[in-house]
């Protein structure tokens, strides 16, 4: 009934009607606003506490008397925060670069090349995806000890640079690219490498971007492996560094919150900017089952 009414009156819709239609969902908007606020309440406390003095941080009142912006530079004096952040970014960046590249090569081999034993090898890849990372972690650490890579960036990057999941994700993506395209290129005399590099890679861009974002995020957060691998404080990644800060100066709530703010805010900005790619990635990732 309502739809008919709407179609009939649409061209003549008066201003009050439009306002009414538009304001119809305002109650729901109100509910959503309250719920959203509840979700970000911890972040609000985090920011406000980071602007307090040490004495105020013990006070239940939320607001500082005067904003202590100096807390932020103070963090850099107490711990090598920028060093931690740089370590995280460099490690995550290298892992992402290597993982996307090796996964794309392998995915091309699995999705497009026809070689004896291919499906059996792929099945082994799939099988290892079920294994909890923890199972491989202890022996991997022993391997790192034998290779002398404990407490080195290389030791952080190497094991994470090859991923069965990434290979799987990109293979699924490449299977969706029409075969006619590489066949045409082949007729034109392109080599396998040229097909891979000039035809498949550009067309796989959404998949590559998705994998890159996921890998980058995952490794920025990564905690277990850097925790067992890194010995020198200067080589800590951000999560390990924050924990170090907490255990060394945990009583300085205001500084701790300034450090937490500085490690969370870039993530928030990144998410707001890359939302669309990220959400698409979640949907692709879920299909793997």
């Amino acid at each position: 009934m309502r739809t008919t009414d709407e179609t009939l009156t649409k061209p003549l819709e008066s201003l009050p009607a439009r306002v009414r239609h538009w304001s119809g969902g305002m109650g729901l908007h109100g509910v959503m606003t309250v719920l959203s606020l509840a979700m970000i309440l911890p972040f609000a406390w985090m920011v406000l506490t980071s602007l307090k003095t040490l004495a105020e941080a013990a006070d239940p009142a939320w607001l500082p008397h005067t904003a202590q912006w100096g807390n932020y530079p103070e963090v850099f004096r107490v711990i090598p925060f920028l060093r931690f952040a740089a370590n995280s970014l460099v490690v995550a960046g290298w892992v992402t670069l290597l993982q996307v590249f090796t996964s794309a090569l392998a995915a091309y081999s699995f999705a497009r090349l026809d070689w004896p034993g291919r499906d059996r090898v792929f099945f082994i890849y799939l099988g290892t995806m079920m294994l909890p990372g923890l199972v491989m972690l202890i022996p991997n650490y022993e391997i790192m000890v034998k290779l002398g890579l404990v407490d080195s960036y290389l030791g952080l990057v190497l094991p994470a640079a090859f991923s069965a999941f990434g290979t799987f994700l990109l293979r699924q993506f490449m299977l969706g690219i029409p075969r006619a395209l590489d066949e045409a290129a082949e007729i034109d005399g392109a080599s396998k490498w040229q097909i891979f590099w000039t035809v498949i890679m550009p067309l796989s861009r959404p998949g590559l971007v998705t994998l890159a974002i996921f890998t980058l995020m995952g490794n920025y957060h990564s905690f277990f492996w850097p925790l067992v691998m890194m010995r020198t404080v200067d080589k800590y990644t951000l999560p390990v560094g924050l924990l170090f800060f907490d255990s060394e100066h945990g009583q300085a709530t205001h500084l701790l919150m300034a450090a937490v703010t500085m490690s969370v805010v870039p993530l928030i900005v990144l998410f707001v900017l890359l939302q669309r790619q990220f959400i698409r990635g979640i949907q692709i990732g879920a299909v793997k089952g």
Partner: protein
Amino acid sequence: MSTGSPRRRWLVGMAFLLPNIAGFCAFTLVPLALAVAMAFSDWDILRHNVFRHEPLAFVGLDNFSRLLRDPQFWQYLGNTLFMMLGLPFAIAGSLASALLLTRVNRRRLPASGWVLGVATLVFVGAALVLLAGGMAPGGVGWMFGGLALGVFVLGVATGGTAYRTLFYLPHFTAGVATFVLWKKLYDPHNGPVNAALGPVLDGAASAVRHTPFLFGEVLPVAAGIGAVVLTAWQLRRLRRRWHEGEIGGLAVTLGSGVPAAAVGAWCHWQRGWNAFAWPAAVAVLASIAAATMVRRRPWRAAHVSTGVATEFALAMLLGPVLVLLVAALALGPALPAAATAGFAAPNWLGDYGWAKPALMMMALWAAIGSNNMILYLAGLSNIPPELYEAAEMDGATAQQRFWHITWPQLAPITFFVSVMGIIYGLQGGFEMARAMTLGGPAGSTTTLSYYVFVQAFEAGRLGYAAAVSWIMFLLVFVMSLVNFRLGNRDAND
């Protein structure tokens, strides 16, 4: 596409695979073989270190038999499973937020860019004024008012997308940083959680003191009646669906067994109520036996995804609710006596009983607006609108529309999300334990993954740790099989 001899094709294929497979062998297959070997060896830092080189001995199943006799292992396995009781709440929360988000008027404001810009400016300006010009206690009201206004305007301007973003942030940022933040939030003396809880608890205590009868007697009775009614409702539902051939024996077993098991586990955990754990265990066995023996319907119904998955998810949700009701029944009578001294806010992370719920609540905060919510949103947008139109024509109420259209249509997602949640839950808890509680107090927040870490890297019992990690693999493997056998096949291909 197949050109050249098999040998040549193999070489080309391998050439592309080489960088990946080299790393895959070095950091996945070799460690895997090593992990198997370790689990059967006596690799212990006490015997094999820089100073002592006793040869490694293979000890067969020793590590595993020790593990079975290790009371700590069982406690930590229990912790891991207990933490997963939060999962159904998280899934229900994700579904509820997805439903709310799809209902929001998707119409963006015409000049949304302008509104957005102005709202942000107003908000930032207000915040700066507040921050710069000394803050009176009343400043908090102004701040939250401004924040709410900003969120509201942004939400209207972006047609609801802003809410989705804000809901998702806790999940996106979850990591050591937010765990450190929550450690401060839970601080028993200076933390905002207890600061906010104080007046609430005082009010509750005075309410109990004023009406001891209501809380000491009416509440437990009401909770008991509630538990019985809920159980009866669930059993009737199961029976009806069974008769209509919508579900098979497996769904009946899950639907009745999972809540019974949850109640039984709680009774066992609450010392003194141990005797009541037995009826629950009997109920679980009876539901399995009944469903197996009365084979009037096949074990698995034709529509596996809408049968087993739905019942499984609903049972997972019913379990904790029943536990809460039974807890109110059990603990209610003691309330008036406890209230005379007033209720003290819990020492969240420092208390044996509260540490686990504290971590679970934090995890819930991060899990509601998570990937699960995104998947539900996608699922909701894929439900054909004709179904709702037809239902509306037949005069179905909103409740009926939900249970007969939305819920079954989303069943494959619910199933996927539950199984994945269990798989991650079995491996989870390490970061929280390490960053917030160090597994304590008294091991109450040590999960299997944290136990592996402690055994391997703190105690140096590498062989034993490997054995524990293989048990974890076994559990994950079973869940993966469940997913593979019962999951929606179409979604898997």
